[in-house]
């Protein structure tokens, strides 16, 4: 097949919708006033912001658009949700409960708090990355002030039982924060139905611009501001608003709601085609996270291809025009595998061979077929280059995915040749 460019990293970011871009443009040079100003330049912009806020509030069925705080991005929203809530509520207790596979912006905000007198319990997940609500219940103490559980995992696509967890937190009188970063735009979100007090997301994940994040915070959840200055966002987040981005986010949210079922149907069909095709053409490959279906977000596949490493796969795919992500240690600056893959207790050899493909609304059947034509050749090339493949064929090491009963495990072998365990 002819080389083509296929973007399969929609969980990293997406292109801005034409409609969103067109709506943003006048706010750079025509309607450029500050919404805090009291003259016509400011008031005009203020109206645009209000409309955008209403559109975004509708997307998540917030009680009021006043419950939204605009920030610089999903990361700032998580920081504000966690640290702002902890600050505002520290007199009630100093304990937080989070899942072991939260986004780094949640994990690291909580870690920061543990250096300032807070304690955290990380709830484990099962082999597909699902949280058991009863584990959340068991982790709650009389000091717990907040539970943080994401709607969808950013790496392995697992949809979490947030509504069930909300019943427990409601019963205990504790706030629940759901990071909806990987979910927003790819499944319906209704904060009232879910029963969450805080929820955050980032419009650039669903065809809005970068530089804008949203934190929903209902009246039951107080957060202390962490960016100090003027009284923008009702005093909850100082600094002149990123007006064009908010306008673009409003349009992206409106269209995300309008087109949701169409997008989900399209992307889920491609996900199925990609999944079935890859498993048909490649041996010794494992899906991380749930099977495509009700427990998995419609747009991602996270796979581990045995006997080869992820960065090599990523680079060769990129060379063929296909953009993907990887959770392999070779890809991370810390040389550690993704904490999500560790939490699902994925064998180190499989974590090394990790690739994440995330689809979007503009991907086509031809794109998927090109990947299905290209990827098996890449796997073949890298397996030929890998000492592990031959050693597997010779029975020196065994497969983790389909054990033959011959040879050592990869991990034992790796430990033997490196003198230390791979972890």
């Amino acid at each position, binding site marked *: 097949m002819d080389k083509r460019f296929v973007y399969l990293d929609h969980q990293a970011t997406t292109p801005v919708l034409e409609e969103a871009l067109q709506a943003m443009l006048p706010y750079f040079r025509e309607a450029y006033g500050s919404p805090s100003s009291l003259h016509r330049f400011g008031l005009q912009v203020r109206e645009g912001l209000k409309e955008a806020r209403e559109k975004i509030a509708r997307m998540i069925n917030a009680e009021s658009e006043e419950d939204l705080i605009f920030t610089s991005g999903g990361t700032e929203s998580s920081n504000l949700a966690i640290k702002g809530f902890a600050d505002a509520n520290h007199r009630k207790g100093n304990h937080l409960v989070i899942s072991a596979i939260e986004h780094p912006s949640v994990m690291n905000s909580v870690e920061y708090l543990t250096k300032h007198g807070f304690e955290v319990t990380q709830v484990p997940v099962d082999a597909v990355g699902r949280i058991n609500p009863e584990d959340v219940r068991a982790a709650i103490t009389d000091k717990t002030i907040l539970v943080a559980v994401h709607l969808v995992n950013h790496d392995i696509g697992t949809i979490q039982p947030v509504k069930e967890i909300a019943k427990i937190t409601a019963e205990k009188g504790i706030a629940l924060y759901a990071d909806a970063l990987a979910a927003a735009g790819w499944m319906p979100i209704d904060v009232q139905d879910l029963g969450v007090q805080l929820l955050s997301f980032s419009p650039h994940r669903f065809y809005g611009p970068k530089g804008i994040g949203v934190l929903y915070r209902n009246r039951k959840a107080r957060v202390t501001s962490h960016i100090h200055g003027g009284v923008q966002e009702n005093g909850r987040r100082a600094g002149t608003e990123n007006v064009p981005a908010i306008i673009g986010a409003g349009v992206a949210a409106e269209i995300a709601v309008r087109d949701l079922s169409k997008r989900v149907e399209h992307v889920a069909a491609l996900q199925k085609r990609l999944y079935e095709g890859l498993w048909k053409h490649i041996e010794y490959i494992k899906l991380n996270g749930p099977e495509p279906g009700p427990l998995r977000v419609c747009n991602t596949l996270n796979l581990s291809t045995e*006997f*080869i*490493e*992820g*960065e*090599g796969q990523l*680079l*060769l795919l*990129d*060379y063929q025009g296909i953009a993907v992500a990887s959770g*392999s*240690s*070779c*890809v991370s*600056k810390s*040389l550690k*595998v993704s904490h999500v893959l560790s939490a699902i207790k994925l064998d*180190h*050899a499989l974590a*090394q061979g990790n690739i994440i493909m995330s689809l979007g609304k503009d991907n086509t059947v031809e794109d998927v077929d090109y990947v299905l034509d290209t990827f098996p050749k890449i796997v073949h090339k890298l397996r*030929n*280059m*890998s*000492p*592990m493949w*031959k050693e597997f064929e010779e029975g020196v090491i065994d497969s983790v995915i389909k054990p033959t009963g011959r040879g050592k495990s990869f991990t034992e*072998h*790796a*430990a033997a*040749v*490196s*003198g*230390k*365990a*791979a972890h």
Partner: protein
Amino acid sequence: MKETKEYTLYNDTVMDHFLNPRNMGDVQEADGVGEVGAAACGDIMKISLKIRDGKIEDARFKTFGCGSAIASSSMATELIKGRTLEEAKNFSNQEVVDALGGLPPVKIHCSVLAEEALKAAIEDYEAKQAPKTAAA
């Protein structure tokens, strides 16, 4: 973003050695084989050698690892061919880094792995030679 520019993670030399690795495979009836792993990241590298008259006649590699690990082993085998054992024992990873035109700081350990695999292969060769020497 200029459309004509190719954006790659590594420089052209590293990309070339990754995309078109030299000396990939196993030396048949090798005189020395070294297989080492990086505890830090989990990469594994294997170098096999053919040695004639105290010189490295052929060197081949197999690598389970990232782009820079593959490029490092490709370059290391290129550099080492034709060298005497004594020269090879003084081989340093820096030579690989320099020949590749540099590696990102976090990837320097890949070149160390190539040095270690080579030295392990020489040790293997010498260990196999020792009994022969003793017998003679």
